[in-house]
């Protein structure tokens, strides 16, 4: 069992504060993904939890025990590094055994744990090879094996798939998910790839500039992003944003005036007439319509992928609008097309970029 609690954790390097008052509770057996752009502090946060770095302020607790000043080795955690950090002069077997030998574990138990991990990760044939003689995927498995043999209370994984090619990344991602199922261990996974986060996570922590922007399940983040940043970061291709103005609210509906694209009605939101807002709509939520209805846009590029068609367009006001249409469509660059959209799928953000809440009845 392993529950990790961060309370008011901050970290500064000189004058530069990279983490600001992070509060987070990671439940036992949960796979939590820290996601965010480069430099957002996700790896720093992981290192603080690992004990490889100390917070400037705040506390870190594992199973309600304060470990803020406890050495990395004594926290019972295991880490898989981005570069794998395998000892190049040791065989795979020696790499797996190294940490256990440090703990003066009996040889028989070390051998048993190595055999078990090797079977689980299918690395038994490579046990006597050195890391330099393995492929990227095999090295990655050894790195995970080194963590598994320690039987840790939680696994910390720092962008473990980033050095793999696209195909291997997808298969290893599935293996990691299966491993999490099998071990039922708490895992904290750091990535900048939102697809990895969406596919692996029980909960996602979105970070930006050292602050948590939103914590939630992948679908919570996708369906109800708390702000413009999360809305733009989660989901591929990214959400379209269009400037709009609140026209007025009547009978539980709010009218939105879009610049150069007419107006539309949405479920009433807590905003006043004249407020400038941003309308967010997913590329998959747009549909092509015939005739004079819907939002007009000029096609700039068409990517026909077979199962779907990606249409890059520009609206009259100059805003770009991306649509992902299911199936194949005969659309050409330069053509003017019209899109319809379901007003229940829309996201509205105020001028500060915060999600607008439904109006109170």
């Amino acid at each position, binding site marked *: 069992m392993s529950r990790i609690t961060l309370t008011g954790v901050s970290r500064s390097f000189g004058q530069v504060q990279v983490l600001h008052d992070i509060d987070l509770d990671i439940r036992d057996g949960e796979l939590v993904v820290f996601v965010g752009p480069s430099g957002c502090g996700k790896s720093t946060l992981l290192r603080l939890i690992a004990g490889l770095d100390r917070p400037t302020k705040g506390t870190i607790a594992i199973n309600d025990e304060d470990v803020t000043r406890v050495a990395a*080795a004594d926290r019972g955690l295991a880490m898989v590094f981005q570069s794998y950090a395998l000892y190049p002069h040791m065989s795979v077997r020696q790499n797996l055994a190294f*940490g256990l030998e440090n703990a003066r574990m009996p040889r028989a138990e070390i051998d048993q744990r190595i055999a078990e991990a090797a079977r689980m990760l299918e690395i038994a044939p490579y046990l006597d090879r050195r890391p330099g003689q393995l492929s990227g995927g095999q090295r990655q498995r050894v790195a995970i094996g080194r963590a598994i043999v320690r039987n840790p209370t939680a696994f910390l994984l720092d962008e473990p798939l980033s050095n793999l090619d696209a195909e291997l990344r997808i298969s290893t991602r599935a293996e990691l998910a299966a491993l999490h199922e099998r071990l039922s261990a708490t895992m904290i996974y750091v990535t900048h790839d939102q697809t990895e986060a969406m596919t692996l996570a029980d909960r996602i922590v979105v970070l930006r500039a050292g602050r948590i922007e939103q914590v939630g399940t992948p679908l919570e983040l996708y369906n109800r992003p708390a702000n413009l940043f999360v809305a733009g970061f989660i989901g591929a291709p990214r959400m379209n944003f269009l400037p709009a103005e609140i026209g007025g609210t009547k009978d539980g509906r709010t009218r939105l005036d879009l610049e150069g694209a007419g107006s539309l009605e949405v479920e009433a939101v807590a905003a006043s007439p004249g407020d400038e807002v941003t309308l967010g709509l997913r590329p998959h939520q747009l549909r092509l319509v015939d005739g004079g209805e819907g939002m007009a846009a000029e096609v700039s590029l068409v990517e026909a992928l077979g199962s779907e068609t990606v249409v890059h367009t520009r609206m009259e006001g100059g805003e770009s609008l991306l649509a992902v249409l299911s199936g194949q469509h005969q659309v050409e660059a330069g053509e003017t097309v019209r899109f319809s959209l379901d007003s229940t799928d829309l996201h509205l953000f105020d001028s500060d970029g915060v999600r607008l809440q439904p109006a109170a009845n």
Partner: protein
Amino acid sequence: MTAQANTSIARRAGAIIMAPVALLARAFDPPLRMLQKFGGTNVMAAFFLAPNMLIFGVFVLFPLAVNIAYSMTGGNALFLTNREFVGLDQYERLFDCGNYLDRQTCREDLFWTAVWNTSSFVVLQVSLMVGVALVTALVLNRDLKARSFWRAVFFFPVLLSPVVVGLIWRWILQRQGLLNFGLYELGFEPVNWLVERNWAFAAAVGVSVWAHVGFYALILLAGLQAIPKELYEAAEMDGTKPGRVFWRITLPLLMPNLLVVLVLTLIRAVQIFDEVYVLTGGGPGTSTLFLTQYIYEVGFASHLRNPGLASAASILMGLVLIVLTLFQLGIVRRNDRRGGK
């Protein structure tokens, strides 16, 4: 002045400097094209290598051949043509010993004294040099305050000429030198550092280590910095104690650099001469007489100079250096092969 103006000035200065080079290149262009057309790439390669080969031939190969020739001649005459051919007599003379364990029984006992001193020096100096260089590199690799300053401090003696090194330490170690002044002020008896045999030998070892350790520490420091930081973090997560980190991670990964340092130090230690010659002159007696000094004195400095004998001794020393160099090349190639995997 703006950055743009600076760039413009730099460009103009570059153009002025490069103008004669460009003119020269243009002048040589037609004949070089002709050479390539009629001679092919091999002739072109030979053409460009010729100046260096000429210099190497005149200053290395020719003296080496002359040296071998001298080692097979006898007498005091300076010019080779005036010297008598004696075959391998000079080598025989060097190896003429009643008992190899007792150099007093050797015909050229000074040669064997120099060999013994050089061997002792090599063992002591190389062990000390590698040890001190390793410790220095480990310390300089830490997050020290003013790290660059400390690195410069350790590297600075490498920039000094050996004669300057010898003179500085003679001023420090002589009877009325700085060290004895300090000892006297602290209430200790002064020590005859350069007069007492063991102290003089220790001074020779210590001074040569001081003069060159910065260079070897730099090689080891480069090796230490090439070890990924994540390996140490992985070891930290594994609860590895500092001693075990050093023996199981740092040392094995530093081994290629350590071997290079070991062989380079060996080669330079065998050739030790200048700073020790200035420091002790080979004394007291013959306690710091090393092989290079023996060769120099027999060949050029002594009243009964014997260029043939000196040449024979230098050829023998050259053979030792060739063996050590081949050993070093072997290590470098093995490292390259490992690095390529």
